[in-house]
């Protein structure tokens, strides 16, 4: 009888402990699965976050290059927009670290105000009518270390450099027209350098004030060529100073030249 009880107790213990073990196994399996899902989700999130920064860095590099190109020369007012469009189309970049790599290509974007979700690019994200706007085509590839989590996307983003390009070009070309009509108004006295100088000084003063009120700096240089055909040539230079670029403050300048001739009788 005692032997049977002992066997029964052993069997009962086996059943109880087996139930506990099975329950524990189910719980452990569920927790392990949750752990695996969480680890994959965390790796995906980490890769995504790093990709956001790499994308922003790639675009920043492109804007740095564009800033260098725009600040190192003086553009022609009548051709500035086309020149910048051509210049932008030559800019490319490749960056990458921490397993994420990005290639980008720049081009000019239409003048319109559009928000962009590359938030890590503040304040250059999105385009705005009246600024120098660009489009960036990016390809991004990445892989989390020791994991099967990978990322591969092609994206297009809109960015800007705060050069007030249309306003600057317009100020420049309108100023050239004003100087031209002023010089044409003095007619045959074009051969008189003093009169030319006083005319340009007078016009230049009001043009400089108008440009300054728009946030630009304007200067006019000129020369006269006396002779049978008296001529005066001049150049209007308009600059926007202290533009907050990704590399720090810079200056953008554009100029336009013209000439007036007077054939004496």
């Amino acid at each position, binding site marked *: 009888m*005692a*032997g049977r009880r*002992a*066997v029964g*107790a*052993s069997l009962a*213990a*086996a059943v109880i*402990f*087996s139930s*506990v*073990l099975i329950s*524990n*196994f189910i*719980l*452990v399996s*569920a*927790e*392990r699965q*949750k*752990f695996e899902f*969480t*680890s994959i*989700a*965390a790796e995906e*999130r*980490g890769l995504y*976050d*790093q990709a*956001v*920064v790499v994308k*922003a*860095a790639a675009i*920043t*590099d492109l*804007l*740095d290059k564009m800033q260098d190109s725009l600040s190192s020369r003086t553009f022609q007012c009548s051709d500035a927009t086309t020149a910048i469009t051509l210049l932008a189309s030559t800019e490319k970049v490749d*960056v990458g*670290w*921490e397993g994420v790599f990005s290639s980008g290509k720049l081009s000019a974007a239409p003048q319109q105000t559009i928000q962009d979700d590359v*938030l*890590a*690019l*503040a*304040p*250059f994200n999105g385009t705005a009518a009246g600024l120098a706007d660009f489009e960036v085509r990016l390809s991004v590839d990445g892989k989390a270390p020791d994991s099967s989590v990978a990322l591969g996307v092609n994206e297009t983003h809109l960015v800007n450099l705060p050069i007030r390009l249309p306003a600057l070009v317009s100020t420049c070309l309108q100023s050239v027209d004003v100087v031209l009509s002023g010089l044409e108004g003095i007619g045959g006295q074009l051969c008189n350098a003093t009169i030319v100088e006083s005319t340009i000084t007078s016009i230049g003063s009001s043009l400089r004030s108008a440009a300054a009120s728009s946030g630009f700096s304007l200067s006019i240089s000129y020369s006269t060529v006396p002779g049978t055909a008296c001529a005066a040539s001049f150049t209007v230079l308009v600059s926007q100073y202290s533009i907050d670029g*990704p*590399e*720090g403050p810079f200056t953008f300048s554009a100029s336009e030249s013209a000439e007036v001739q007077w054939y004496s009788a």
Partner: protein
Amino acid sequence: MRFVDVSVAAIIGMTALASLVAWNPYSFEEGSRLYLREASLQDYMTTIVAAEGVPWFQHASFSSICNRLSQYSNSTVEVSAVVDGLACSTPPPRGAPSANLTIDVGSARVLLQAWQVAGP
């Protein structure tokens, strides 16, 4: 006979207890919590980078980066950085949930670090 029964029952019990210790769901649960905390720290750093903008990190000085990041530290999260090898503060304590985010732009290399200083 009784000795055998007691031995068998003891072996079953000990095996079961050993299995419970070895197959402890707590270690996986704790691992999941750690991943979630680290992902949350990673998101917090991305929010900081989005607010300041990657271009700012490119030309900001070491001291201005450190000062700005210290404003993002609070009672539960500490945010710091290593800028071109120079650390703003002491590194995260060993074992604390932490996350890193690297910004490599222009000539600047900034390693952002965030770690938890107290439990939620």
